[in-house]
């Protein structure tokens, strides 16, 4: 196996999870794929700086995250896209899990502070370890755990509050009320 082939395979293997993270950051599949493409190009060009035996995921996700923060975040985040993205891709995934419906879950996610949502997505959706996520986000493992816990608690709170207001006013009003009563 040539060095070039294994570099390609290593990066290829990470693409699906990089895409998942990129979609959570950018709010849309097209922008996400642009971000992943730039990440791949940069990782390829700088592969010599990756130390074999260290965590490749942490390295790749760090590149993607830094690219997003330096270049993509300047463009306004289209929060509404999260619903749109997932609504259009819902063909194979179940909409309802227990009491939680996917659309309202996406809305709740969008309401989280960026650092909490990021930690929750990387740990709970992308499936990285706390150590990997701490490395990517450049903070302590304890900080990531705390963000994930707060994110989960906040989502549970948001879903409860939305449920409580749902029966009366239309969804727009209840969303406004939720925003006003939320912390």
């Amino acid at each position, binding site marked *: 196996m040539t060095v070039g082939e294994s570099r390609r395979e290593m990066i*290829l293997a990470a693409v699906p999870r990089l895409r998942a993270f990129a979609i959570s950051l950018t709010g849309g599949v097209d922008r996400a794929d642009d971000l992943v493409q730039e990440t791949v190009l940069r990782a390829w060009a700088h592969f010599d700086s990756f130390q074999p035996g260290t965590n490749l995921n942490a390295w790749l996700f760090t590149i993607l995250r830094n690219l997003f923060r330096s270049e993509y975040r300047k463009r306004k985040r289209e929060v509404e896209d999260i619903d749109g993205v997932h609504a259009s891709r819902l063909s194979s995934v179940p909409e309802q899990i227990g009491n939680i419906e996917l659309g309202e879950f996406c809305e709740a996610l969008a309401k989280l502070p960026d650092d909490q949502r990021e930690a929750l997505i990387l740990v709970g959706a992308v499936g990285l370890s706390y150590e990997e996520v701490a490395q990517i986000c450049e903070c302590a493992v304890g900080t990531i755990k705390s963000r994930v816990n707060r994110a989960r608690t906040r989502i549970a709170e948001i879903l409860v509050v939305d449920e409580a207001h749902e029966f009366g006013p239309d969804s727009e009003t209840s969303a406004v009320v939720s925003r006003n009563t939320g912390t």
Partner: protein
Amino acid sequence: MDERKDQRASQRSGTRGKQSTAKKQGLTPEIQNQIGRQLRNLYMDVVQEGVPDRFTELLQRLDEQDSSKESKS
């Protein structure tokens, strides 16, 4: 502020008879489990999609460019 929220939630509980009481209590193990499953659910289709052609082709090109550079030097 949390007390106000709880009050409002319980005022409406009569009208929302079918609403699970577990939900009103916030982050129960049941809700935590459902959140975890919805998170994995969210990106299941992205992961199942595999690698779009755009990226396989890009990496193929990069690989070939590197190989041709090596053979020239």
